[in-house]
């Protein structure tokens, strides 16, 4: 179902072609990073710290080096020193520890051998002496007076007055507007609640993998799974102290990322070992390594207070947010601060957010980083407000929703946005008024996420036969190649299947930033449109030459050059006729679009969730789910729906089951898909995705990023549904059967207030 504003009619955009890389993926032939093997290849394994916090006293690699088949052993000493405080320090020492380890699973060395078994045995023979330090594992640990300080150089950024002593607070963000005291004074209802959440993992099914091949000339090629191969190139170069141009990165198919593959872990180790051994080195993480050593999303403690007038008008908001970003500084709190009140027009507000470091794996981005948690707090509070004031939760949101011109938390007025349209799409859906069964409850929640622009490049090559190759620098995580082809088809006017979309390596296409911030279809799409539009200009010129007319008299219509001049009728020239004569009219037809995309458009989503709660065991089942989201323009609606549905599934997992569990030493207790419970098919219902289209004025086809917003509303939607079913408010994640039963029991065992 699609809610559509009046918009231009497109021939290709909005259709649902079979994705161009699809056949390879359903036949098992698509090459993911771990599928590649090179002649002479060695297998590399990282040696990882068993301690959450320790000083490395010494590393003895001699026994490992002497073992059969072992060709290369490296430690932090094989990489250039990096000073604490250097802007790349965190990334560099996270990839391989230097003097200290900061979490269980932190890489301290790596070995490469002829077989994986030899490498495993050699890794076990690397002797690391540790001076174990007390671990800092929770927010309370980190903020306690006299707490062990992870990084002696870390002074709190944003502190007022400026920090003079190091601490575990990496950053403080403050936003304020209006007059908070006056706002609360004007409120008829003030509610303040505290929420806690645990780190969760992106849970991509493909583990991190790469193959690096360093030649005698000192140049290296890396095949890897990442959300941005240009970033792999620059980060690897930084770690190795190499010139960027010595490294070529070839993107393999990527088996999911969700933000977790925007950073690097293995590539510099593989390159260093390959350089030392003079042979290619392949590294593939185990699932256990992925859980222990790659970035989860932050855990949080959030306190939010709302002031509301009796008619439902939100007049004041106060938020105190703490995000743990794992072992190094991260942006969780900043992003939480930027999202907590962003969806609603609240004149008087104060937000203070702390980012703290603890001895757990360094957080990485995870789909709309930080926002699902602020939404958990804000949207469950709104539900409580609606209950208290006897206002329909939908009306409360419609009344306070931001619309065009309203100021954001950061002060700028919103451009055209589709929040109200998303709310209305849910309100008008049959689900909103469908009857509920026994022990069932319904929850409504909204969510907001930015979209980002950044740099993108695309090249359009027209082939002799009239087909086109569109090369971009954005790894295709979820079908973006099809979207690129659709936009190129729309501009060029040729069939979408006559376009072959390709992800180019770092030497085959212009610089392109990481696929993050829901930017691929938005920003790289813009580059494709720009290159395609340049191609149309070129084609008109060639056609004019062939027809012997002025270029101004040539229009490009449906893939043909059409003469519009007054010098009689001329047969239109189809694209293939022009490409066939390219040699005679000026040579190959190639255009590029390289740009820094401006005008990323915010995306909103509204979700409606029905749950059924077993009141005696606390088990919660999601039984019906409907989600609306503003896509601006859906280039390939099936993949927009897929992004929404995937976000919902991840959000439901986050809400009900997923969490990192550590023992008192900081050792992860559930590093497997058995005990880290991502939703399975039998755990979810169908997910009805409603695409709302309020075009982004800054994009040639109105695109807004859609990849992330869908994960923002599910946690509060589930929480509100549980409340509706049981009368209990759950404010700690995950809302496991244990917590739900506990809440029901403390609430008197029945559906209470």
């Amino acid at each position: 179902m699609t809610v559509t504003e009046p918009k231009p009619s497109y021939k290709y955009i909005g259709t649902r072609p079979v994705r161009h890389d699809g056949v390879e993926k359903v036949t098992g032939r698509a090459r993911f990073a771990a599928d590649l093997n090179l002649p002479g290849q060695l297998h590399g394994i990282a040696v990882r710290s068993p301690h959450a916090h320790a000083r490395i006293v010494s590393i003895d690699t001699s026994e490992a080096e002497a073992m059969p088949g072992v060709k290369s052993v490296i430690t932090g000493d094989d990489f250039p020193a990096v000073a604490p405080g250097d802007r790349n320090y965190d990334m560099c020492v996270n990839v391989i520890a230097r003097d200290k380890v900061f979490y269980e699973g932190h890489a301290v060395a790596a070995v490469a051998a002829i077989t994986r078994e030899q490498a495993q045995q050699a890794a076990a023979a690397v002797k690391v002496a540790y001076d174990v330090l007390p671990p800092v594992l929770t927010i309370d640990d980190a903020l306690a007076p006299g707490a062990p300080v992870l990084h002696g150089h870390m002074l709190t950024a944003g502190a007022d007055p400026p920090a003079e002593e190091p601490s575990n607070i990496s950053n403080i963000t403050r936003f304020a507007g209006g007059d908070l005291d006056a706002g609360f004074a004007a409120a008829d209802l003030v509610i303040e609640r505290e929420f806690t959440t645990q780190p969760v993992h992106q849970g991509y099914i493909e583990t991190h993998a790469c193959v690096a091949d360093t030649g005698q000339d000192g140049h290296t090629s890396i095949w890897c799974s990442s959300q941005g191969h240009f970033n792999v190139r620059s980060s690897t170069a930084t770690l190795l102290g190499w010139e960027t141009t010595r490294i070529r990165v070839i993107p393999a198919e990527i088996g999911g990322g969700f933000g977790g593959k925007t950073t690097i872990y293995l590539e510099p180790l593989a390159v260093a070992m390959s350089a030392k051994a003079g042979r290619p080195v392949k590294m593939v993480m185990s699932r256990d390594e992925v859980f222990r050593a790659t970035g989860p999303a932050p855990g949080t403690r959030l306190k939010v207070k709302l002031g509301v007038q009796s008619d439902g008008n939100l007049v004041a908001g106060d938020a105190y947010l703490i995000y743990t970003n794992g072992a190094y500084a991260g942006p969780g709190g900043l992003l939480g601060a930027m999202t907590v009140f962003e969806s609603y027009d609240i004149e008087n507000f104060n937000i203070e957010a702390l980012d703290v470091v603890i001895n757990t794996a360094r957080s990485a981005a995870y789909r709309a980083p930080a926002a699902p948690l602020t939404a958990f707090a804000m949207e469950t509070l709104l539900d409580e407000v609606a209950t208290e004031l006897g206002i329909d939760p939908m009306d409360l949101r419609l009344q306070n929703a931001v619309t065009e011109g309203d100021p954001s938390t950061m002060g700028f007025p919103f451009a055209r946005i589709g929040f109200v349209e998303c709310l209305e799409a849910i309100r008008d859906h049959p689900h909103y008024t469908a009857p509920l069964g026994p022990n069932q409850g319904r929850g409504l929640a909204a969510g907001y996420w930015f979209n980002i622009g950044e740099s993108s490049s695309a090249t359009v090559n027209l082939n002799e036969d009239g087909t086109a190759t569109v090369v971009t620098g954005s790894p295709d995580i979820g079908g973006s190649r099809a979207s690129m082809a659709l936009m190129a088809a729309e501009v060029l006017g040729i069939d979408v299947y006559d376009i072959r979309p390709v992800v180019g390596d770092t030497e085959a296409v212009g610089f392109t930033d990481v696929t993050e911030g829901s930017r691929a279809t938005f920003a790289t799409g813009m580059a494709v449109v720009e290159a395609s539009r340049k191609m149309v200009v070129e084609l008109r010129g060639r056609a004019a030459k062939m027809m012997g007319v002025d270029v101004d008299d040539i229009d490009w219509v449906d893939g043909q050059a059409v003469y519009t001049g007054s010098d009689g009728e001329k047969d239109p020239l189809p694209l293939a006729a022009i490409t066939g004569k390219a040699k005679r009219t000026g040579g190959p037809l190639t255009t590029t679009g390289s740009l820094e995309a401006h005008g990323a458009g915010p995306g909103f989503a509204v979700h409606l969730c029905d749950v059924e709660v077993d009141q005696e065991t606390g088990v919660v089942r999601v039984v019906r789910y409907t989600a609306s989201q503003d896509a601006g323009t859906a280039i390939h609606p099936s993949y927009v729906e897929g992004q929404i549905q995937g976000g919902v599934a991840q959000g439901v997992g986050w809400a009900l089951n997923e969490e990192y569990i550590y023992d008192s030493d900081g050792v992860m207790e559930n590093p497997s898909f058995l005990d880290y419970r991502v939703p399975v098919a039998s755990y979810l219902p169908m997910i009805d995705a409603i695409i709302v289209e309020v075009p982004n004025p800054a994009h040639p086809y109105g695109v807004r990023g859609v990849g992330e917003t869908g994960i923002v509303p599910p946690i509060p939607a589930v929480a509100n549904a549980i409340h509706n079913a049981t009368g209990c408010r759950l404010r700690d994640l995950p809302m496991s059967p244990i917590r739900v039963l506990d809440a029901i029991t403390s609430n008197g065992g029945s559906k209470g207030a």
Partner: protein
Amino acid sequence: MPVRVHLSSNLRGPTGGVAEVEAEGATVGALIDDLDRRYPGLGDALRSGVSVVINDLLIAHPDYEPVADGARIYFVPQTAGG
């Protein structure tokens, strides 16, 4: 011609908490230089991790972006994503 510059609240330290100030410059970069002269320290804050919104358009790396007469400029923190 001076233009009106709006600072998100986390950037207002150097202005003593004032949200909206005036500055001159043909480009955003020049504007930042001018703001730094008027409010020492603000330049550093605006040169790292800050985007602008000009005429509804979010621009992440705006240094050379031209500033038209009458434009309203909003400095905001840069976002990231997953």
